[in-house]
């Protein structure tokens, strides 16, 4: 006897969540409980509210997730409008995260999205630990590296050096460039993390200085001469800001002059922007494809309703269509998702001395470090209020600050100085105090 109950909004999703199957995830428990838990308890963070982020929010909201948060530090620009479809002309200038959240909530009933208009580094680690899955829609290596370090920082290893499942924070990462893209699943401790496979990224194109300075041959050389050499000569001290139209126009004018001098054609304002900002054109369809793949993986990871991508999907739509899955292997010596950089200390070492040591440590090279231990701020470099509050810890022995345990995990954030480049980073440290009872040789077997 059929009654007039309205069809379930999740009629289609229910088929995957309520029915048992044989090609499913390892801990899949089909049933209404799963569907309801997904709605009530599953929390997903979307990092980035741009080309990928907009698509991700929509896809996740329409895939049964009701608790989403999104973080993005940018404001909407006109050039975003061809693909960041949640934004309209009248939104230009407003924060992406806020507008994106608002628009998706308007269209999908029942979903709650909390926007965060700030940098990812501005949130402390606790913020990120709240989420079940973090979905990345980022456009830079540095940002990915940072979030990867955060997610991997939660990972703990047991005494046999096996990763503990309850501390794994899965991430789904998508990236696009023109007609190409990738989607990958990162489960810290199981799959390679972002750092494990950092060699996947080709080095940035850099023109030799002598070409720029003496024998330019094409428009890009003239532009980079103006951008990298002439700017400093004329504006010494003032940083070049690629988002400042006056700066960009200055570079363009200088590039034109240089091109005329050498008889080179092809310098245009648009090329100038492209070269200076390293712009690769973005297309909506690639973003849609990659985000959809990421959202699907997020659903599968959260619910177990099917097996997951293992672990890297590449997509190329230039000539025909090519997708390929590669199973990359974790680097067991990875500084980020491994058991942590091993640091042995005397119990007398003060926090200040420890912070100074980090700068010299060959595997860390971290300056201006802030230290947290099990959620407690031992010392924070910023903001001034916190710095003042934690300053008194600097003269105390680290051993005491760590509740006198023989060994434990510490998290340090600061500026990493590697290969002449500075970037903000987070690292996990395994601190072992020398000469304490209970620290046997076996415990040190893991090594850094």
């Amino acid at each position, binding site marked *: 006897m059929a009654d007039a109950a309205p069809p379930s909004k999740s009629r289609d999703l229910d088929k995957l969540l309520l029915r048992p199957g044989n090609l499913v995830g390892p801990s899949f428990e089909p049933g209404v409980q799963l569907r309801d838990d997904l709605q009530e308890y599953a929390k997903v963070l979307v990092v980035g509210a741009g080309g990928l982020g907009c698509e991700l929010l929509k896809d996740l909201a329409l895939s049964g997730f009701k608790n989403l948060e999104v973080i993005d530090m940018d404001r909407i620009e006109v050039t975003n409008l061809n693909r960041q479809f949640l934004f309209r002309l009248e939104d230009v200038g407003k924060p992406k995260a806020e507008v994106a959240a608002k628009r998706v909530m308007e269209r999908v009933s029942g979903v709650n999205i909390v926007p965060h208009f700030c940098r990812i580094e501005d949130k402390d680690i606790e913020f990120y630990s709240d989420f079940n899955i973090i979905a990345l829609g980022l456009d830079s290596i540095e940002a990915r590296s940072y979030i990867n370090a955060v997610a991997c920082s939660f990972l703990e290893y047991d005494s046999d050096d096996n990763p503990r499942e309850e501390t794994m924070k899965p991430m789904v990462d998508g990236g696009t460039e023109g007609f190409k893209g990738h989607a990958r699943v990162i489960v810290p401790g199981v799959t390679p993390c972002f750092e494990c496979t950092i060699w996947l990224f080709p080095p940035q194109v850099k023109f030799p200085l002598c070409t720029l300075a003496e024998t330019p*041959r094409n428009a890009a050389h003239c532009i980079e001469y103006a951008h990298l050499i002439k700017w400093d000569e004329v504006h010494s001290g003032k940083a070049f800001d690629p988002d400042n139209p006056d700066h960009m126009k200055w570079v363009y004018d200088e590039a034109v002059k240089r091109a005329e001098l050498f*008889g080179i054609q092809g310098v245009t304002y648009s090329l100038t922007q492209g070269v200076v900002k390293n712009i690769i054109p973005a297309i909506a369809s690639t973003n849609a494809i990659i985000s959809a793949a990421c959202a699907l993986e997020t659903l599968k990871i959260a619910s177990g309703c099917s097996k997951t991508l293992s672990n890297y999907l590449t997509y190329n739509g230039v000539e025909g269509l090519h997708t390929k899955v590669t199973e990359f292997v974790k680097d067991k010596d990875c500084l980020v998702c491994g058991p942590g950089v091993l640091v042995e200390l005397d119990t007398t070492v003060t926090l200040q001395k420890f912070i100074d040591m980090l700068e010299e440590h060959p595997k860390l090279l971290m300056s201006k470090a802030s230290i947290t231990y099990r959620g407690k701020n031992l010392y924070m470099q910023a903001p001034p209020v916190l710095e003042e509050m934690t300053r008194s810890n600097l003269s105390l022995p680290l051993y005491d600050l760590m509740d006198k345990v023989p060994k434990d995990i510490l998290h340090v954030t600061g500026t990493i100085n590697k290969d002449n480049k500075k970037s903000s980073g987070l690292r996990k440290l395994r601190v072992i105090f020398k000469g304490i009872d209970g620290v046997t040789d076996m415990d040190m077997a893991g090594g850094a």
Partner: protein
Amino acid sequence: MVKLDRICREANVMLIFARSYGLTGLVRISVKEHAVIESKPDHFLDDLRLNNPWPELRGFAEAIDLNVQDPVAHKHIPYVVILVKMADEWIKSHGGSLPSTREEKREFKELLKARMVAMDEDNYKEAIDASFKVFAPRGISSDLQQIIIDSCAEVASNSSDFWVMVAALKEFIANEGGGEAPLEGSIPDMTSSTEHYVNLQKIYQAKSEADFLVIEKRVRNILKKIGRDPNSIPKATIKSFCKNARKLKVCRYRLIEDEYNNPSLPELQKYLTDEDYSIAVGFYILLRAVDRYAANFNSFPGQFDGGMDEDISRLKTTAVGLLNDFGCNGLTLTEDLINEMCRFGAAELHAVAAFIGGIASQEVIKLITKQFVPMSGTYVFNGIDHKSQLLSLY
């Protein structure tokens, strides 16, 4: 699908199918013929003609002395000049032929190395790295060869602009081109003095322009011959055609009906037994099977809760029947996959639909803009482990 396909093919309307079904789906283009001039491939060899220099390029190279004393000048001679001169020297001392055996190629590179007077001569390093361009066979690629011998290149009054230009190209290759396509005209960046580089660019641009003018003339003559207005193809179109001549692509798609009645057996068999892609091709078969099922039973397997076991067994029978129709007797789909297809119950998941929609829309853009090469074959999406596959079933 078959009916719509026939109608669109009749009316010459481009058709693209997109389907989303549980964790699978497919995309298939159906167009009689789609010619692409601006194919813009990712990696394509530059057109330097180092294996077949024309008189002006030779002349330019001849006027430059490789043995110049000034070390700065020595290391700023572009590798194009180096290779043209060294190749010519070789030809003179080897009875008119370029290096062809492994031994000869190695020797040629040694000769280049011997001319370096310092370790930091990037131009010579570039010459050594690029020497393979000297050894490359002359003439056009087999892909282009296929296009010019195509029956459509025998043009008539109803031939498309593309084929008219191909006909002109064919004539050019057989005559003024000396077996080569028109010169593309651009050169890659290379270590060089600005002066040499800019002059070299002008030489290439001049020949490219000259080749274009010849082809343009031939195009206009052919148009006249087939009774069309000789100016009906714009200059810009012909110019673009010349620049992209080496990269032309012609895509043809069989009718869905033909694919259904006669799918490529070897292709199916290859993938059904492949460890990675058996799921994707299994889904292809099952997508056809559920349609047959729906035609017989008025619903999709698993569409309603209850009676799952019966649906599974019916779907299995339908799938086996389909495989037999294809002549794939003996090949089977796994029980797990058949169960999974019933589990889907014709559900449409947003993420899967978004993925399929993204792929299909990308292809639509390629078809409409006639830029980049559309996919050939039937794309079958595998949302379980993402080992999707493009099946060439015709």
